[in-house]
């Protein structure tokens, strides 16, 4: 098949950005080659997984995706221009219009109340209002992207800091109920030093695992009843066993596309203890026999990405990744892939499609990732926290220790570690209590459910009510406009729906509209219930299936929808 390529030519800096990426991946240097030379053919097309990194390279270099730039990478990778365009258009971070920089201001459920004032102080510079940037404990959050590979995260953001482009450095408050297990090294051990990690007990788990054998590790993980910490609570040992029993090449994916509003636990782990994440992936690889690992990290986490890349490189230099990991006779290495602004890509099968250079739309399940995952191979996909917990469990630590990112109207917003079974009230106490009277608490992020102040003694665990989700806890005081909060959640799902299935594509927009009518005094509970039913029952993936949960719980608890006239 001959592809019809674009006529527009790439600029020097666009070519350089793409060339640098591709040559690092073993593509030939075509400098000086006349005209439109195609090199690679099927070999190039087989590296479709480089499409997303190449789009990032263009966007990082010049700030947008031009026709010439897109055309250049399409030729290099033998990708049809229409397909590459459809992929680029899928992500919020890419635009087809030239721009100097983009200032993204979070206006989600935690940062939202600050957004207007912040934007008003920005001298009229153009901003994009974006969903949760994962820095809720330091609200408000801003993320700036500028040509020339510059990405700046600012939290807490002030107009001056944004205008100066100066990152504000405030450490995330860390709190613990009981023994720190997952957060033991965060804030105390240098995250950029492998030696420091080892001195603090790092890589003992991998060493113990290779001594004891994969079966023993699996038994330990199973006995600890470790369940997925990304939100789905799937038993980790079951996934690992399924992939361990699979044939041929296998893959370990670390899902670091943390984007659930109110959730920032994986960011803190990656920033504060990146080697533990690498060790967790290596442990999973040893147990399952996977040779390739991918860390898929959200595009709004540049510091976490830098730390993870640094940890992977240091581990590789020390022989802890590569052809013979730690001299234990197995091969494993990790590639980092960056998301580009799409909540849906945290859904495991959408994540696979995103890595593979396709639109980040979910796949039908079954087949499950353990059967046919990334590149069609048996794949273990685990959340960052799950992998760090697996490392701790291998060292006989309590597998029931969980992270709770807490924000909103509490004295000390931050990341808290507590045993599963802890009550919401105890967590709020640990965070210094509410700043004023509580109106409601949202557990589990936008896909979660609300609690009323009288119900805060409920405990949080896998499989109990309210659903644990990501563990995010956002506290709203009595001054909060809950109609606005619920509306923001509904708009979040409308904006983040990939658009593939009808229930989610149209249902999420109808939900926003019905909520608007609710604000006008019309009570349309039946319509909202029907929308919730079709979203829950007939959407392809978890995004759509959970898109009505918070709305429904707000209605049930009469936080919204009660005639106040």
């Amino acid at each position, binding site marked *: 098949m001959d592809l019809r390529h674009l006529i527009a030519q790439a600029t020097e800096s666009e070519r350089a950005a793409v060339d640098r990426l591709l040559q690092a991946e073993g593509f030939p240097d075509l400098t000086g080659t006349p005209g439109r030379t195609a090199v690679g053919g099927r070999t190039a097309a087989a590296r479709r997984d480089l499409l997303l990194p190449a789009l990032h390279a263009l966007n990082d270099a010049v700030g947008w995706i031009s026709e010439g730039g897109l055309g250049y990478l399409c030729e290099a990778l033998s990708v049809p221009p229409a397909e590459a*365009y459809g992929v680029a258009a*899928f992500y919020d971070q890419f635009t087809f219009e030239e721009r100097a920089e983009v200032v993204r201001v979070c206006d989600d459920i935690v940062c939202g109340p600050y957004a207007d004032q912040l934007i008003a102080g920005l001298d009229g510079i153009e901003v994009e209002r974006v969903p949760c940037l994962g820095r809720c404990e330091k609200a408000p959050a801003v993320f700036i992207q500028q040509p020339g590979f510059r990405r700046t995260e600012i939290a807490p953001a002030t107009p001056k800091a944004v205008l100066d482009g100066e990152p504000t450095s405030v450490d995330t408050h860390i709190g613990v109920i009981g023994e720190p297990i997952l957060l033991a090294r965060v804030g105390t051990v240098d995250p950029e030093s492998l030696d420091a990690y080892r001195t603090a007990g790092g890589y003992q788990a991998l060493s113990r695992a290779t001594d004891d054998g994969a079966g023993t590790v699996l038994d330990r993980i199973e006995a600890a009843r470790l369940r997925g910490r990304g939100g789905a609570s799937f038993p980790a040992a079951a996934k690992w066993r399924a992939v361990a029993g699979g044939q041929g090449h296998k893959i370990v994916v670390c899902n670091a596309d943390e984007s659930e509003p109110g959730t920032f636990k994986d960011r803190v782990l990656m920033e504060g203890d990146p080697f533990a994440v690498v060790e967790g992936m290596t442990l999973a690889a040893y147990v399952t026999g996977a040779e390739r690992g991918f860390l898929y990290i959200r595009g709004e986490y540049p510091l976490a990405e830098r730390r993870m890349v640094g940890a992977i490189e240091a581990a590789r230099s020390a022989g802890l990744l590569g052809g013979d990991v730690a001299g234990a006779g197995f091969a494993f290495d990790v590639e980092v892939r960056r998301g580009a602004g799409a909540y849906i890509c945290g859904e495991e099968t959408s994540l696979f499609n995103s890595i593979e250079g396709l639109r980040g739309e979910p796949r*039908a399940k079954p087949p499950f990732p353990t059967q046919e995952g990334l590149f069609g191979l048996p794949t273990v996909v685990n959340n960052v926290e799950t992998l760090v917990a697996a490392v701790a469990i291998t060292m006989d630590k309590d597998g029931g220790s969980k992270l709770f990112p807490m924000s909103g109207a509490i004295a000390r917003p931050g990341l808290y570690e507590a045993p599963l079974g802890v009550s919401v009230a105890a967590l709020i106490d640990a965070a210094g209590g509410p700043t004023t009277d509580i109106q409601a608490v949202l557990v589990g992020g936008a896909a979660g459910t609300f609690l009323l102040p009288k119900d805060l003694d409920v405990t949080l665990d896998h499989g109990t009510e309210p659903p644990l989700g990501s563990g995010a806890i956002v506290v709203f005081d009595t001054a909060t406009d809950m109609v606005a909060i619920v509306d923001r959640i509904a708009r979040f799902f409308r904006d983040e*729906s990939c658009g*593939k299935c*009808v*229930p989610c594509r149209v249902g999420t927009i109808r939900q926003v509209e019905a909520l608007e009518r609710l604000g006008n005094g019309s009570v349309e509970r039946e319509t909202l219930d029907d929308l919730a039913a079709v979203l829950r029952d007939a959407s392809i993936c978890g995004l759509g299936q959970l898109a009505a949960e918070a709305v429904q719980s707000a209605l049930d608890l009469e936080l919204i929808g009660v005639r106040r006239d």
Partner: protein
Amino acid sequence: MTDTVQITIDGVDVRAPADATILEAAAKQGTEVPTLCYLETLTAANACRLCVVEVAGARVLAPACSRQVEEGMVIKTRSARVDRARRMVLELLVSSVDLSLAPELLELADEYGAEPGRFGDAGATVEHPVNTDNGLYVQDLSKCVLCYRCVSACGDDAQHTYAITVTDRGFGAAISTEFGVALPDSACVFCGNCVAVCPTGALIVTTEYDMRQAGAWDEGAQTVTRTICAYCGVGCNLDVHVQEGEIVKVTSPFDHDVTAGNLCIKGRFGWSHVSGPASPA
């Protein structure tokens, strides 16, 4: 002999090939499950969710078009839960897309008791200008239900031309060329295989579009004659649609083992000379 599995469909025990989908197994048993995005000649997109059925023990409904049967599966193709989901899918579609050229879908919406009007007049609808940038087919994406059929037919499932894609996301997702360029400036080879698979008239051959605009399109007055394309030696079957002595459209049967419904630009569009002005001798 292929492996078979024992399953139960609507209370009836049946054996089905182990590699069959629920849709295929149900059809074999004589139970029709409604579909929209599914087409036998294309990879199931699993997008419209109209074909959802209840599988005992499953948390959510399953798409019959792409879920494979499993030993012991107990399936309900109709239930209050299934009907509610289908009614809502239809309500969502009818309320957002112009389905005037998809009468079967509108009938199905009636059958399931869909009330698209309850979303109010202010509800968002899919709006795109009609694209007549070429002389062979018309794109009216206000009629598009995003079934992905045209993209599959243009791409891996048939033509391997990859001229069109789904662009953007969510409710704004739409069919497009790269950078939205006009079809003649895109990779499109005008085979019309996208038109052939479109279920809602969002893609329609220009002759039909013009006649419909003029109120002259009358399927009841048309005859369809099967013949074999004379342009080359492949042997594609053509269905020639004739109204009042004039060819108005050419298609190819989906169940034909040479074409599977596909044609090239010549077979599908190269017929105007039949009734055109006589060529100079």
